[in-house]
């Protein structure tokens, strides 16, 4: 009997006997995704995950040549860009992919927000997702310093100084982040540790919970679609995850690869000038685009408001904004009862418009 079977069947049976693959395959074959006019938003989570894998892959490759010290970091990136075969490509893909990942993550976050997919029973999926959002921004911030160039040096100075505004623990946090009182080579070592060990570990843990929750609870159906289905006007349609949805996902990933390859090849990521601890901040300095709206706000805020430092109030306002987003499933209770609250949608629109307008202003001024 066994002699008649192919090698793959024998191997499959061998594994199945030990780890019960059958139940997993059964689960996968039954898995379905709702199909409706908002389905397109489902793809951005998968795209973000795909770009995260690109980051892990290219990041590991970069560690083969990168040296995390103030004396050698810039030179090692220069070496990767100019001497190592395809080094320019790997580094450019790492940088572009980081930016695309943050873009798809913003889209994913706000699409979930506006479709109110955070409503019961998916509060924890939102909370873990928000945690991932914060961690990805921390990835961006810590990775930005690693080439040790002029722009990243000042961005890190300003960014870490902002942590000092936090009441009571601010000064301690600044020292903890910088590895001393100032941004120096010690900060670089520390940020390297955050970027390649601490943050990946935390992301892996939270991402696993996030993805397991998505699997357990299935995809959320928007309130309007759900209502139409309940009233019998328009029943929801499902498509199987395998192969239909998965193939669409795959198609999305190929689009991402094409965009990444085009960006990396046509616009290789620049390295800039090496950081000089004793040079003035250059004119036209600004952080990465996803922090520009905060940066621009800090530029506009006057030095003193009602006797308090303007920047403290500004940073506190951003903190409250972040806390609001984090807690939104617990603040907005109506969608769980199939009601849409205009207030929360309005706040969401305000946040998106604020980010877009201030970012545009930041690039124009």
């Amino acid at each position: 009997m066994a002699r008649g079977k192919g090698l793959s069947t024998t191997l499959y049976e061998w594994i199945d006997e030990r780890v019960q693959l059958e139940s997993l395959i059964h689960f996968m074959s039954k898995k379905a995704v709702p199909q409706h006019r908002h389905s397109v938003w489902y793809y951005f989570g998968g795209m973000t995950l795909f770009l995260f894998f690109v980051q892990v892959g290219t990041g590991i490759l970069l560690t083969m040549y990168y040296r995390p010290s103030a004396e050698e970091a810039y030179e090692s990136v220069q070496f990767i860009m100019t001497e190592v075969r395809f080094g320019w490509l790997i580094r450019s893909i790492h940088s572009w992919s980081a930016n695309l990942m943050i873009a798809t993550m913003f889209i994913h976050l706000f699409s979930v927000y506006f479709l109110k997919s955070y409503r019961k029973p998916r509060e924890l999926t939102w909370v873990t997702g928000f945690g991932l959002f914060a961690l990805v921004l921390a990835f961006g911030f810590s990775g930005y310093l690693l080439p040790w160039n002029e722009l990243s040096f000042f961005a890190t100075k300003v960014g870490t100084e902002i942590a000092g505004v936090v009441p009571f623990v601010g000064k301690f946090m600044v020292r903890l982040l910088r590895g001393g009182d100032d941004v120096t080579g010690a900060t670089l070592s520390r940020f390297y540790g955050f970027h390649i060990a601490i943050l990946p570990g935390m992301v892996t843990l939270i991402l696993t919970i996030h993805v397991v929750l998505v699997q357990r609870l299935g995809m959320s159906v928007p309130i309007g679609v759900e209502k139409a289905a309940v009233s019998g006007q328009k029943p929801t349609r499902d498509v199987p995850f395998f192969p239909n949805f998965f193939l669409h996902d795959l198609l999305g990933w190929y689009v991402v690869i094409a965009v990444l390859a085009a960006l990396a090849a046509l616009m290789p990521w620049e390295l800039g000038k090496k950081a000089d601890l004793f040079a003035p901040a250059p004119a036209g300095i600004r952080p990465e685009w996803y922090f520009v709206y905060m940066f621009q706000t800090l530029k506009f805020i006057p030095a003193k408001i009602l006797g308090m430092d303007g920047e403290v109030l500004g940073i506190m306002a951003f903190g409250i904004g972040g806390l609001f987003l984090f807690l939104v499933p617990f603040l907005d209770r109506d969608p769980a009862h199939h009601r849409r609250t205009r207030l929360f949608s309005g706040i969401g629109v305000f946040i998106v418009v604020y980010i877009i307008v201030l970012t545009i202003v930041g690039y124009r001024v």
Partner: protein
Amino acid sequence: MNTQPTQGSSSTATPRRSFLNFLLSTSIGASIVAIFYPVMKYLTPPKTGEPATASVVIPKGTELKNNSGQIFKFGSKPGILVRTPDGEFRAFSAICTHLECTVQYKKETSQIWCACHNGVYDLSGRNVSGPPPRPLENFKVNLRGEDVVVSKG
């Protein structure tokens, strides 16, 4: 006869159990503290013990042209030496009081300017526009031949 010892043991069982639970949870708590305390202490960078710089000499600092500025090292921090359009020398800490960027001299307006958030100081170090909340720290300037000696006021 039979019920007596049972009653006795059940009345002592609960305190014993809760005592053991107390011991278990406090020892787990103590283990966590024993692990995380040194980790937190390890992560907090040590004070370098660098002696505070009282003064520095800028060699040939007097060669600085009128209406210009120059960054110099004041210990581990940047300072800025300024020569006003009238030829007077002044020195300040070059750390912007807003978010710690390094400032520069702006010839066009004869002001000290921070590029990060557009903070502006006059030639006395006073914050005159933009977000900086305080003036720049002022240093004393003395001329010694061709050199400029900058010291903390």
